[in-house]
Every structure is written in structure tokens, then in C-alpha cells.
């Protein structure tokens, strides 16, 4: 019998306890650690390399989707059973992506069924890879734009709230995020980040630049063909012809 290594990630003690109680009937699953927030979860995953995680969605610091996204970015993706109390949008997203989940409070039968599915998943690589966490999170947000971006660099996790994000520059497979005077790299394409942001707030002013509209002071025309966006802190970013067109459309709508 292979022993499955599991983590229980939930900010409420009693909620973790329920999962642990249900697991007592399954000696082939060993709980490696319990985590009360997203940061602890990332550390515990790195330390224990679990096969399976029970993951709550609403948690302090990092939510369940963000934890999964960061794990993915490091190439770790244990089998996941989401455990959540009430979030119709998230449920619809789980159903749509055939992701396993438990609704609090849940029955023993429901728990056992979810665990049985997860065991199969761990035993054999599934034919269809699990959906990327970002895609799942976007589906759960139901079209509402992203509010913050999470980045992991080694052991360090940075949470960037979008009102602190000045602009984003494309760098091959990475994006450079400019926030509070610092540059932070994240493995993501500019297009995929742009798709998750509020289009009225972040404008693609150039093939390689997304700008927080709030930072823009004015657009200057240097030569006939070349324009610069001047930001509050004096930074100048290039504005392409298409980007200028987008800005003008926004201004005309306003």
C-alpha cells in the first residue's frame, strides 16, 4: 500500500480538525502538516513534497487560488481537493474544470469519494492535465478583474496590490512589474496578465508596456512618429500609435 502524504490548509482550527477526523478512517493517508495560511502552505509544500493537499479558498495573506498559482510557478502541483464553505462562482468554476471540491460541512461519503478520486489522480498521471490555477481563479472571479498579483522568488512571496502597480514591461516569457520603486519579475506573458486586469485601469500603451492609467500625467509628442507617456514620478514610457489610439478612446469615453 502506498502511503499518500497530505497537507491540510485552512485558517480555521476546527475546519482542519474535520478533515483530520475524516482521514482517521484512511490509514493510507498521512498528514504531513497542517497550515493556517498561504505562506505556511508554500513552506510546507517545499518541505514535505505532498501528494495531496486539502485547500481552503478564503484565507489570510494568500487565498487558495494564489497558493496553487505559486506552487505551479515552481513546477509543483500536488493533487488538490478544494474545501470551501460557500462560493457559487468558485463551485461553478470547479464543476466546469472537473476539479475536486468539498462543500463545508460535508458527509463521510462525500469525503471518501473525493479522496478516492484524488488517489487515482496520484497513482496515474491523468490524460488531461489539471487546469492552470490562474485560469481556475479567473473562472471563479466570473469576469471580475484581478485585484492583486502574487510573485514568488525563491522563498520570498510578494503580493502586489494593483493600486501599487505602476506599469508592466514584457520581457520574453516574463513580465517586469514596477511597484513602489522596485522591479519584480514574474513568469507570465504580458498578454495573459493584461487579460486578467481591468481594461479601464491598465492600458496597453505599447507592444511591451501596460500602464496604470492612474500614473499617467500627459503624453508628449517628440517627433512626428514618436510619443512618450510621462508618469507622475517623471518616468517616460514609449507610446505606440495603437496605444495612443487606445488612450484617446478612453479619454473620449470619459
Amino acid at each position: 500500500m502506498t502511503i499518500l502524504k497530505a497537507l491540510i490548509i485552512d485558517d480555521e482550527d476546527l475546519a482542519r480538525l474535520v478533515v483530520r477526523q475524516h482521514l482517521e478512517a484512511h490509514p493510507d493517508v498521512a498528514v504531513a502538516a497542517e497550515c493556517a495560511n498561504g505562506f505556511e502552505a508554500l513552506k510546507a509544500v517545499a518541505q514535505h513534497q505532498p501528494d495531496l493537499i486539502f485547500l481552503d479558498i478564503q484565507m489570510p495573506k494568500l487565498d487558495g487560488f494564489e497558493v496553487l498559482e505559486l506552487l505551479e510557478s515552481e513546477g509543483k502541483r500536488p493533487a488538490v481537493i478544494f474545501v470551501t464553505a460557500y462560493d457559487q462562482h468558485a463551485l461553478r468554476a470547479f464543476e466546469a474544470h472537473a476539479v475536486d471540491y468539498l462543500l463545508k460541512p460535508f458527509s463521510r461519503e462525500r469525503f471518501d469519494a473525493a479522496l478516492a478520486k484524488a488517489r487515482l489522480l496520484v497513482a496515474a498521471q491523468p490524460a488531461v492535465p489539471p487546469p492552470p490555477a490562474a485560469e481556475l481563479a479567473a473562472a471563479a472571479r466570473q469576469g471580475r478583474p484581478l485585484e492583486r498579483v502574487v510573485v514568488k522568488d525563491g522563498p520570498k512571496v510578494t503580493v502586489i496590490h494593483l493600486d501599487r502597480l505602476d506599469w508592466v514591461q514584457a520581457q520574453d516569457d516574463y513580465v517586469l512589474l514596477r511597484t513602489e520603486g522596485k522591479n519584480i519579475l514574474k513568469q507570465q506573458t504580458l498578454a495573459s496578465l493584461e487579460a486578467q486586469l481591468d481594461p479601464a485601469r491598465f492600458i496597453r500603451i505599447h507592444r511591451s508596456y501596460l500602464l496604470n492609467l492612474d500614473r499617467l500625467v500627459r503624453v508628449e509628442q517628440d517627433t512626428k512618429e514618436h510619443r512618450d507617456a510621462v508618469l507622475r514620478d517623471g518616468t517616460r514610457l514609449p507610446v505606440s500609435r495603437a496605444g495612443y489610439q487606445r488612450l484617446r478612446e478612453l479619454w473620449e469615453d470619459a
Partner: protein
Amino acid sequence: MHPFLASRGRLGTYLLGWVPIALLLAGIARSQGWSWLEAVSLALPLCLLAAILFLGTWFLCRALPLGRTAEGLGTQGAVWSTAALLMGGLWAGLAWLLARLLAWVPGLGGLPQRVHVALPVLTGLGILLYLASVALSYLMLAQARALEAERKGAELQLLAQESELKALRAQLNPHFLFNSLNSLSALTAVDPARAREMCVLLSEFLRRSLGLGERRLVALREELDLARAYLAIEQIRFGARLRLDLSLDPATEGALLPTLLLQPLVENAIKHGIAALAEGGTLRLATELVEGHVILRVENPTDPDAPAPQGLGLGLRQVRQRLLGRFGSRARFEAATQDGVHRVTLVFPLETEP
């Protein structure tokens, strides 16, 4: 009731409207060689008769709303043509009768003869005037219907607002309920006594909030009891993460305020404050009485990494709206985050149950 008969002013306007028609009639008669006396003596009473007679068209118009189908219009055309012919004839007949009566008056002896000659013209005029009164009646009916629709719309909107408020008051936070039930599910195995306590607390909370949902105003005491039941449950859920600091002035307990005003504040403090902090924090709830005003404060620590909220959330907006809706400029609402503490302050006059 006919709209013209419903108000003296409107009846006056209607009758005044007939004066130019009477003058026109007299003018036509003059042009036919009638004397001024003959023309005016006949035209004025004749128009008064028409004014009274044609009031009836409004009732007929109401009974025969303008049809939308060609067929309906055809039927109505037939009805109105017949009615117009009859009324035109009747009016001319009345003119003839009137002339006979007026012939007794000295100087008007020639009137019957003159009217007799003018009978076809009078009939034609009668028909035209009758059709005009039909058009006017339909116009008035349409306007009345438009006004009625507008009034109904406004009424419906008011009703919708009212029911929205009702739904808001009866709203139980499902996230809270299911999470509590989940905690209960854990406790049943490890601590049955605590599980029972939680059942009682949940029942008390539910009973209180369902009872409050039916009332518009409650004493602060009842709002505080509900908040206590709610916080006792949350303390079981969050354990040591939720610490409470209650400082309540007994003098404020009788103060009346709109129902379920405190609950959203306390729920917000948990959801956006304590629950979002890994280490939790202290929720402060304080009331005091200052110069006849109740000051109610709810404070919670916030995540320093989270950006300050932009404007008020829906819950807080509704609290403010309902507080100011009740007390107007005598109340004050403040919400601000400062030094990592989110604080909502309500100030309102102390009004107790008589």
C-alpha cells in the same frame, strides 16, 4: 366621474372655452344679416346647451377605447358617425326650439324664420363640434392614462425599494452559516458539550435575526444581543484569533435605531479584519452617551499589506443610507482606516420608546 365635473376650476375653463365658439357662431349669424341681438341671444344659450350635451362624449369615449385593429377602428368610426349625426340633428332641433321660445321676447320675433333657413348649417356645425369634443375626450383619456402609468411606475419603484430593504434585513450571511455548521461538525466528535453550546448559540442568533427582520426600529439593546450571539459563534470558529473588547454604556441601551444596523458593521469587522489576518486581532465595540447623542464605534485591525478600501462597500453604504434616512442631519456616519485600524462611527440622537 367626469374630469370636468370633478373640479370647479376645470369646469370653468371648459365653459370659457365655449365662449369663442359662441362668438364665432354669432359672427357667422351676423354675416347672414341677423341683428346683433338675434345672433347673441341664440348663440350663447345654444353653446351652453352644447357644452352640457357634449360632456357625455367623455363617458362614451371611455367605454370605447381607441381600437388598435383596423376592424375596431371601423366599428368605432360607424359609432361616432351615427352619434355625430344624431347630436348634430339634436342640436339643430334645440336651436329651433330655442328660437320658438325666444320669439316671445320683443325684437326677436323673426328668429324662428331665420333659424329655419339656417337649420342645415346648424346641423353641420353641430356635427363638427361633436367630433371635436370626441377628439378632446380621447386626448384627455390618453393623458390620464399616461399619468396613471407614471404614478403606478413610481409606486412599483417604491415597493421594490421596500422589498429590497426587507431582503437585506432578512439576509443571513451564508458563508458564516456554513462555516459555523462545519465547526459544529468538527466539535460533535471532539467536544460534544461545546457542540451543544454552539447549537444553542446558532439557534439564538437565527431566532434573533429572524425576529428583528420584521421590524423597522429596535432598541440598541437588541442589536447588541444579536451581535453578542454572533460574536460568541465566531469566537468558537476563530478561537484565539478573535479577541473581543466590549465597552458598553448602559445609558445607550434603550436608544432606537433602524433594524440590523449594527450587524453588518460587526460582520465586516470579522470578514475584512480578523478573518483576513493570520494572527487575528481585537474587535472593539463601544457605545457612549454624549450630550443626548449615542456614539457607537466598531473597530478592527486590518492587514497592513492590503490597500485602503476605495470608498464604502455596499454594506457600509446601506448602513449610512439607513441611518441618515432615519435621523437626517441629526446623525453622522464615519468610516476610516488609520494606522492599521478600521473604525466605523455612528452618532445619532438618543430616542427611546415612549
